[in-house]
């Protein structure tokens, strides 16, 4: 912890081990890891708000394509069938596995849709600071949805299913499958290019600045702690 960094950078606690530390001003592309446990505390992407916004808008368009177009077509002895993402869940529902169908819809449609829409709302709001404090709530829910948006896992699952079926019938990949592949790349790309700290800097405090100043960790408490 250099003295030069002290006045400008607020104190923070590591999310994984609670160690108090100050993050120095990072260069573009720089990362700060916890001094004790190595948890990634902060990263400074090149363009923390504009680029994620562009990627989110792109992903939303691709998301519509992935859901509207068939994932694959199957042909066997003169019979055809094709499926979409929702079609897969629908068949599960019709066959009596309703809870499983709902889990699949959540991971394949609801979680990614919420993630993209909430990110879009926060990123658009961030263009005109200050953001209302509830945009923080939106961002929190958006980030919670992230691990549940499982296009990467789903893609591998479809690959396994295709190889199993390929011995019985001819299977052709559809446009939906390529869109899903694109989403599997776009969703992590949004997370990597986005810096939540930039949003928090611009958020209007819920309890006003006077209270905020009183509640803020004092600059000199570390000295007193020793």
């Amino acid at each position, binding site marked *: 912890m250099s003295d030069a960094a002290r006045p400008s950078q*607020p104190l923070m*606690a590591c999310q994984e*081990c609670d160690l108090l530390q100050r993050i120095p001003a990072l260069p573009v592309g720089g990362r700060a890891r916890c001094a004790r446990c190595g948890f990634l505390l902060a990263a400074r992407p090149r363009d923390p708000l504009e680029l994620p916004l562009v990627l989110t808008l792109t992903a939303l368009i691709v998301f519509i394509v992935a859901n509207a177009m068939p994932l694959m077509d199957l042909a066997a002895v003169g019979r055809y069938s094709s499926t979409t993402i929702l079609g897969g869940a629908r068949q599960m529902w019709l066959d009596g596995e309703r809870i499983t169908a709902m889990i699949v819809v959540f*991971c394949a449609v609801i979680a990614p849709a919420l993630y993209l829409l909430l990110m879009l709302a926060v990123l658009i709001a961030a263009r005109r600071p200050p953001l209302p*404090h509830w945009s923080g709530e939106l961002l929190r829910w958006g980030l919670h949805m992230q691990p549940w948006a499982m296009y990467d896992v789903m893609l591998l699952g479809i690959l396994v*299913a295709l190889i199993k079926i390929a011995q019985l019938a001819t*299977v052709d990949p559809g446009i939906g499958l390529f869109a899903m592949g694109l989403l599997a790349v776009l969703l992590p790309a949004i997370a990597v290019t986005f810096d939540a700290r930039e949003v928090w800097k611009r958020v209007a405090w819920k*309890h006003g600045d006077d209270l*905020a100043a009183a509640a803020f960790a004092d600059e000199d*408490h570390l000295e007193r702690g020793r």
Partner: protein
Amino acid sequence: MSGAVVTGAQAGLVSCETCKLLTRPVHPEHAGHCPRCGATLEVRRVQSLQRTWALIIAAAICYIPANLLPVMVSNTFATSDAETIMGGVVYLYTSGSWPLALIVLVASVMVPLGKLLALGYLLVSVQRGTARGHHERARLFRIVVFIGRWSMLDVFVATFTVALVQLQPLMSVLPGAGVLFFAAVVVLTMLAAETFDPRLLWDSATNMEKHDG
């Protein structure tokens, strides 16, 4: 590590889990809400150990039918074939695609079991106040969080196989009861990883240093 190691809890400070703002609550017992984003503040996640235990015990119970019951039932004119998760791995292996068989074996059999054992071990180590191997246990926790979602693989395999192979009356595939239990194991272990507070792993390190100093 020197005496400079001070945690937020030691200094009487609470870090907001949503926006990472560090504040000094008036009452440490009732930390209240974050002044910036309004999220509920907690020094450590409330009842982290109890909730994580409850979730992994529920997941362990579901793990048994998930492996015993079939995930898919294939019907043709004459035959009806039930396939469990292990059966699917064996089928992939015997049909020549051993790399996929390996992926499914790791994602569907080893990862869920490994997660249950790893989270159980982490919980026991926190409850016993184990003061060694913090870095190793922190790494174990991160691996559990990272790989957890990949176990959903078999649920998607079943979903899309069922959706595609609907060529009645020639051949059709129906989902089996096992797929529900399997999905439950994945969801419950993912939730367990989210309720577990990794800061608990490091609290024993902090206490030890206080004794030394």
